[in-house]
């Protein structure tokens, strides 16, 4: 289980390893599934491996969709 939460990559190491920031400290993970990862990227970590690089553009989707939806569903009908 264990939540795959986005953690920031702070240092790339050899052998497909990297350090991700874990609050005030670091965690070492394997980046073998995200070979294109760069320092500064956020990754989703599961059982010691990064499995996805966070796409920052898509993060705003919740906010955007909320704004659109508020307009559509607002009873006061503000267009």
């Amino acid at each position: 289980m264990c939540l795959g939460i986005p953690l920031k990559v702070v240092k790339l190491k050899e052998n497909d390893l990297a350090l991700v920031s874990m609050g005030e400290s670091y965690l070492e993970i394997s980046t073998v599934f995200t070979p294109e990862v760069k320092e500064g990227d956020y990754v989703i970590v599961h059982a010691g491996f990064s499995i996805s690089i966070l796409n920052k553009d898509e993060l705003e989707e919740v906010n955007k969709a909320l704004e659109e939806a508020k307009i559509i569903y607002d009873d006061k009908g503000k267009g």
Partner: protein
Amino acid sequence: MEEKVSEEIVLYHGNGGDGTKELINEILKNLDNDILRKLGDSAILNLKDKLAFTTDSYVISPQFFNGGDIGKLSVYGTVNDLAVCGARPLFLSLSFIIEEGFLFSDFKKILQSIKEASDECDIKIVTGDTKVVEKGKGDKIFINTSGIGIIENENRDLSKRKVEKGDLVIINGGIGEHGISVMLERLGIKVDEKIKSDLAPLDKLILPILDKFKGIKFLRDPTRGGVATVLNEIANKFSYEIEILEEELPIKNWVKEASNILGIDPLYAANEGKVIIIASKNEGEDILKFIKQNRLGVDSKIIGELKNDGNRVYLKTEIGTRRIVDTLKRDILPRIC
């Protein structure tokens, strides 16, 4: 006379004769005081006040961890059990059960740690014992302590305080640090020194607030089982529903991230430098301000209150919903304390 210096502790050291003398000499080298050096079968103590008396055993693995070791833990843990009852810690007994093969150098390190910790708390180790067991019949080293403290005045006697509806729940800092940091080490996850146990003695934090504020109703240190367990004990003991607020829980970022990674709720993870204070509503803010001035209380927060008659603990989540915080029913990972 040449001192015999062994590399490993073996069954011979448990023979009660010269072997055991080696261990005792090492103990005295580090923990010497007027009572201990008498090496009597009992320590004779002259005390007139009301006494607090506690006992504990320490079986933590690994014995050396970020933020401390089993020696320091055995001293601070006992001191804290006395402090939360309003007692000034004075004397400790110390018993070791050592598995043969344990390195003498590790034993020395632990003794040095115990010395530092007992000096810091102004307590004397006055009596003790050592035993050595065969390989496989113990796990490196177990420590048992008992502690004596004195309740010096009426202010520090909590036995007659009355817990009431509206009382506040205060904690002196971040939750889950000991349990989560030890768990990370046990699972083989490489961590740096910033991730460490919150192991600390609380007597100098607690005793002054008891002297200053009459509104302290109850104290307990959330060790095994964490804050959730202690709050459930309190709710049950005094028959009040306790509500805590997720937004107000002090928690270090690494604890938050690590607990998500591990799938452990920090509310159930052990703390070794924290105390839960149940305080009257009208003194709550003042108590908070006061403990924040102590280096062991900088992150103190009021995290909840005793709301109604009842006996359960609830958490108001950060999205505004409410859920139960139940008692711990599963084995998170053994040997955390």
